[in-house]
């Protein structure tokens, strides 16, 4: 696996993403390009399912870099994000040394806090040199981790180094490409955002969403894909608790195409609405007149 060279302009970036089936807005391509050129983490915020995580995957594939993913959750701590000592193995090593009659404590201590007893977690892995070039580090859904972890990230993201008391400081020879995503289930501290390039990923416009559906669901007919996109775009105008994202559009289009649907009918929409709307309240609201109206608008212009 050899690493591709970094794109040299915003257009090249856009092309690179498109070549991997990611149809990005130009503004997103611009900030991604900038984050590569400036070596700064990219902070992507936006509703669920608009393709924030996807961009990290696409980048790693397109650039031929390793993708290291850190999924955040409440209670994420150093031992599961950065490193942990393999205590069982260390214990055995101590017993072995004892059995062999080794009594040099200094020696013992440096032996058991060595690289081979260390279990490396995503953040530490991302700092290690890789033959293909610095990896892509995806810190996914940072809003799920608690504030204490966020504060810990500050050091890593500004210096790309980790200090391990028994071991010393590990510093990345080349900083990784960092993508951070957040669904805004809570606000991320400004101090962290300041170290990153920030971009709000919005729902795509109808035209782009149509292109995305065509790329991701290859078998779909032109008519159905158009209706699907029009329907979803109309849903986003409604006052729903959770509007469908692009991921839901793709899911739905795939579902419809699996069912061999030719065009949207009340029956088929009713059966598959669960692919789009994820709250019972929203689904209830979509029945009856609202459904009729949206459906009529989506299918009328053919």
């Amino acid at each position, binding site marked *: 696996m050899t690493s591709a060279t970094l794109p040299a302009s915003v257009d090249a970036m856009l092309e690179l993403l498109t070549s991997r089936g990611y149809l990005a807005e130009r503004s997103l391509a611009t900030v991604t390009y900038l984050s590569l050129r400036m070596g700064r983490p990219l902070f992507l915020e936006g509703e669920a399912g608009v393709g924030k995580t996807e961009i990290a995957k696409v980048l790693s594939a397109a650039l031929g870099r390793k993708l290291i993913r850190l999924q955040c959750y409440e209670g994420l701590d150093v031992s599961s994000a950065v490193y942990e*000592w393999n205590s069982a193995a260390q214990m055995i090593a101590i017993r072995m040394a*004892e059995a062999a009659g080794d009594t040099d404590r200094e020696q013992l201590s440096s032996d058991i806090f060595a690289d081979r007893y260390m279990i490396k977690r995503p953040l530490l892995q991302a700092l290690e040199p890789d033959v293909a070039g610095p990896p892509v580090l995806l810190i996914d859904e940072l809003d799920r981790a608690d504030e204490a972890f966020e504060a810990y990230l500050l050091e890593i993201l500004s210096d790309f180094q980790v200090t391990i008391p028994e071991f010393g400081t590990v510093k990345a020879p080349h900083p990784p490409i960092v993508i951070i995503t957040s669904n805004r289930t809570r606000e991320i501290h400004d101090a962290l955002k300041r170290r990153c390039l920030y971009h709000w990923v919005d729902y795509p416009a109808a035209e782009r969403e149509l292109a995305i559906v065509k790329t991701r669901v290859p078998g779909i007919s032109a008519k159905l894909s158009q209706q699907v996109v029009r329907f979803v775009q109309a849903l986003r105008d409604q006052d729903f608790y959770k509007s469908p994202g692009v991921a839901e559009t793709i899911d739905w289009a795939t579902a419809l195409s699996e069912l061999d649907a030719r065009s949207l009918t009340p029956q088929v929409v009713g059966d598959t609405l669960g692919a789009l709307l994820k709250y019972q309240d929203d689904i209830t609201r979509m029945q009856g007149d609202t459904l009729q109206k949206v459906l009529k608008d989506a299918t009328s212009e053919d």
Partner: protein
Amino acid sequence: MAINHLAPEQTEQFADNIVGFARALRAAGMPVGPGAVIDAMSALQVIDIGNRADVFATLEAIFVKRHEHALIFKQAFNLFFRASEEWKHMLDSVPLPEQARKTPQAGARRVQEAMSQPRMTETPQHQEQDLRLAVSDKEILQKKDFAQMSAAEISEALRAIDRMHLPQAELLTRRHRPDPHGLRLDLRRTLRASLRTGGEIIDIHRLGRIEKPAPIVALLDISGSMNEYTRLFLHFLHAIGDARKRVSVFLFGTRLTNVTRALRQRDPDEALASCSASVEDWAGGTRISASLHNFNKLWARRVLSQGAIVLLISDGLEREADSKLAFEMDRLHRSCRRLIWLNPLLRFGCFEAKAQGIKMMLPHVDEFRPVHNLSSIQELITTLSRPLPPHHRSLIRSAA
């Protein structure tokens, strides 16, 4: 590896422009630090500055750190980066903002009051008497309704609120720290300690779960009927927000406003002033249902995700009480750990839930408490500092 495409004199002019732009953003209320200006300069050197859209996206990524600021940024960008002639013309015609709106500084009132205090000319005997009086005054003050207080009593109440300390209502987190009584074995520290004795484990180190205060989210009704209470409640929320960071405050009348950031300022007067500056519908009508809907839709997932306690401070006098209100209350109730409704109307002993709105809301709260004087606020604090129920469904509807 910044590449400098620009001639030196061009760069200089560019730098001036960016600095000016950053200042304009700052004047518009966006937090733009000097670091961002430097970032912007180096970013603009690696993109094609002939492309306006790219310049926009670049500067946006650097200067905008919150989605709410995107709109301000867009307007500022369009205004700032036009043809220079047009811009100059605009500067001539627009009065300078500093002169245009000069509002009295926060805290001015307090300073004024402090200056106009009567001089202390009384004799020591008098002071002694005053002290004795003050003690009994305090008792009266504890029970006195906020709505009937004189200005002096209110300021005394404010001082009492300032002195209140919210003990930690603890929530167990999933993080650990060294704790001799903890349940989990700290293998790493145990091993390190064992090295000192040549590998013999003598002390076993343990880990305990970290406890931290549960977040509090307050929804405060600022409609006309609540007028006498809002300032005191805001003060109270400022006081508890000061000690513990995770307090979010929303004000609602006909619309919902998030004033959490405004309330974070350390000085209570300043905080309250910037709070009222950000609210448009002070002491107007109430639309509880619509405001709750907005909260549920825009904020609930952001501020309630970590097991928050919700304080709903309202008299529940809603004109448009219908099934929507019950629906929104139910949703709010289901998305928080505990929903406490504080209602100043409960001060009347013979209070009955007759109003349609109140009837709609009552089934969906965990607790229904009065909050109209200092002692009821004190009781609230005691409630908040009790250990939290394992899950919020357990102590429902006891007070109602």
